[in-house]
């Protein structure tokens, strides 16, 4: 029901951040997540970061995307 994409914060200015989705940049609001920092990965919906990802969670997504034959175990 709701598209949300993982993106990396590449610029931070108070509660406004520039995020990169595979290199596509857009300004969003980060006031809904706690202590956003430069380099953090966030989930973005309608111009708002709604969740912050740990590094391991980003790696999980990468492993899932690489696992096109849908093996049960990720790595």
């Amino acid at each position, binding site marked *: *029901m709701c598209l949300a994409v993982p993106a990396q914060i590449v610029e931070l200015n108070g509660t406004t951040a520039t995020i990169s*989705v*595979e*290199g*596509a940049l857009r300004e969003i609001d980060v006031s809904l997540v706690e202590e956003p920092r430069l380099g953090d990965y966030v989930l973005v919906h309608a111009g708002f970061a709604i969740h912050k990802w740990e590094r391991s969670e980003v790696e999980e997504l990468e492993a899932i995307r690489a696992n096109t034959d*849908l093996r049960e175990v990720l790595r």
Partner: protein
Amino acid sequence: MRYDRITLAHGGGGSLTKELIEQVIAPEFDNPILRTLDDSAVLVMNNRGYAFTTDSYVVTPYFFPGGDIGKLAVCGTVNDLAMQGAQPDWLSLSFILEEGLLISDLEKVVASIHKTAVEIGVQIVTGDTKVVERGRCEGLYVNTAGLGRILTGNWLGSANARPGDAVLVNGSLGEHGVAVMSRRPGIAFQTSIVSDCAPLWPLVQEILKTGVEIHAMRDPTRGGLAAAVCDIAHASGVGIQLNEAAIPIKREVRGACDLLGLDPLAIANEGRMILFCRAIDADRVLAAMKRHALGKEACVIGEVKDSPKGMVLLHTTIGGERIIELPTGEDLPRIC
């Protein structure tokens, strides 16, 4: 609910555009040449085939990353000729200019037209200029028409794809659409992606030198790859099967599409072509394409089958299968 007015989606190159042409415009002028509704008309004079086409350019902003409305106006029309195997010989050039347009901007556009035309070896032989009141167009609109001699032995057209053909593409998809969209008000995002806008004729010349019999070529402009392959599957009465993993799309294009909820297969290209030839000839054509700068990333993305007729199937990366439909129209950013 039918439409009683033109909406932006009618100009999107998808099913609403098709419907408008087939129901409102084309029936009034029905004739065998028009009936194919290909990107250019094939005319026969003194036993020689000519391709003839026209196109209008209304892109905003008129300067965009990787090109401008002038370069686009030459490339778009020349590419329609080239896809018919025609040497682009002559172009007409018409401007609709908005009151207030900077003459220096017009000069830049004209210079860009000149440069592109010289590069291809096409002559601009006639033209027209009109000015409209401020607010009645956005800066400038350009129309070009093109005429060229067909150099291939067989005639190419959307109806000529055959079972057993390979489907080739010359490079990665969606860059023009994403580059232009990034500059549209209300959507604004930044990307290092630039338009793929380029004249395809030099590439087509390389391909024709191989002597391989080409069945069909098409530049996937508005409506993207999806619209182009749907059209060809329908016109040729064949089933086209594409392999998702083989379709080249840059990460940044994918990122922009993910962000805005758009389908990269339905995004416009202006320097890309798809080509149909017998599968056994595909390697020779690929080798020829790769010799040209515009074909460095050329690859095979699918094949043509006897059935299901008129349909395009995509084999997905996870081993599923889905139908590719003609897109409806306007690309709108969405949340769901």
